[in-house]
């Protein structure tokens, strides 16, 4: 029903603001219902910048804004699992560390699985599965590392 929708939007928007503030170190953002499109507008502005339109954001800034919305949805309604395939690609090391710090908290609410080439992402993982194709064309799991905590 409409009431449930707007109540959910409020909750997701609150979380979105929180994550934009954290990931952009003081940035601002919001989600807004637009009756003309019956859709949701999304806005994000890194601290110290003047963003007129979302198109102006850089590749990494767009990835961070997307991640902030993903985290807000997870916080509002934690799914049984969350898969992220090379989301760390466009991020520089400093921004990736903020994302990974936030993921550590979220992984208490949902099973987080990354696919990555990045060493920093591997270092925060409790389990690492290595996949190879030693035999042409056939995927095998080669090794599992369990981090010692």
């Amino acid at each position, binding site marked *: 029903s409409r009431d*449930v*929708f707007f*109540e*959910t939007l409020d909750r997701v928007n609150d979380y979105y603001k929180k994550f934009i503030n954290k990931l952009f170190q003081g940035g601002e953002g919001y989600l807004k*219902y*637009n009756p003309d*499109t*019956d*859709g*949701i*507008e*999304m806005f*994000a502005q890194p601290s110290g910048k003047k963003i007129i339109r979302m198109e102006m*954001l850089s*590749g990494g800034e*767009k*990835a961070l*804004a*997307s*991640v902030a919305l*993903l985290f807000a*949805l*997870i916080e*509002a*309604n*934690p*799914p*049984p*699992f*969350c*898969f*992220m*395939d090379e989301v760390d690609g*466009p991020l520089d090391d400093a921004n990736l560390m903020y994302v990974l710090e936030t*993921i*550590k908290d979220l*992984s208490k609410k*949902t*099973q*987080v*699985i*990354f*696919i*990555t080439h990045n060493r920093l*992402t*591997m270092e*925060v*993982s*409790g*389990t*690492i*599965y290595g*996949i*190879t*194709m030693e035999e*042409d*064309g*056939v*995927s*095998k799991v080669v090794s599992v590392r369990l981090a010692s905590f």
Partner: protein
Amino acid sequence: MRLVKLELLGFKSFCDRTVFHFSEGITSIVGPNGCGKSNIIDAIVWALGERGTKALRIKEMEDVIFHGSNGRKGLNIAEVTIFLVDDKNEYSIRRRLFRDGTNEYFLNGKSVRLKDIQDFFLGTGIGLNTYAIIEQGRIESFVQMKPQERKILIEEAG
């Protein structure tokens, strides 16, 4: 509810039976280009009932079945099983496809329709418009999608 195990058999490049156990905390899947990492995500999306070929990077549904390589013949069946637990129970979702096109879904070992699988996941955020799976190269999609598509994501979180 939490994901605890995933089993692939004959799905894309995973010719032999392959099992992944997921324990608490963060899991990373690593490996060289083309080794089969993204195929694991395709397996999850497929087991949840995905029938769109573009999302699965295929042309026909049979393309998900291992089609052979230098040393191996192609198979005639692809099967993916997802195991979940919550405080009380264990659950399993399975999808199976034969080369002749027969498509089967199982919930806790019992043959069901796709609709039963979708009802099972209702309200968990896992559905065909799920926000919980970010495919390769799609991280900016939340920023680039149309406002109506973003509304569907918010509805999934309700």
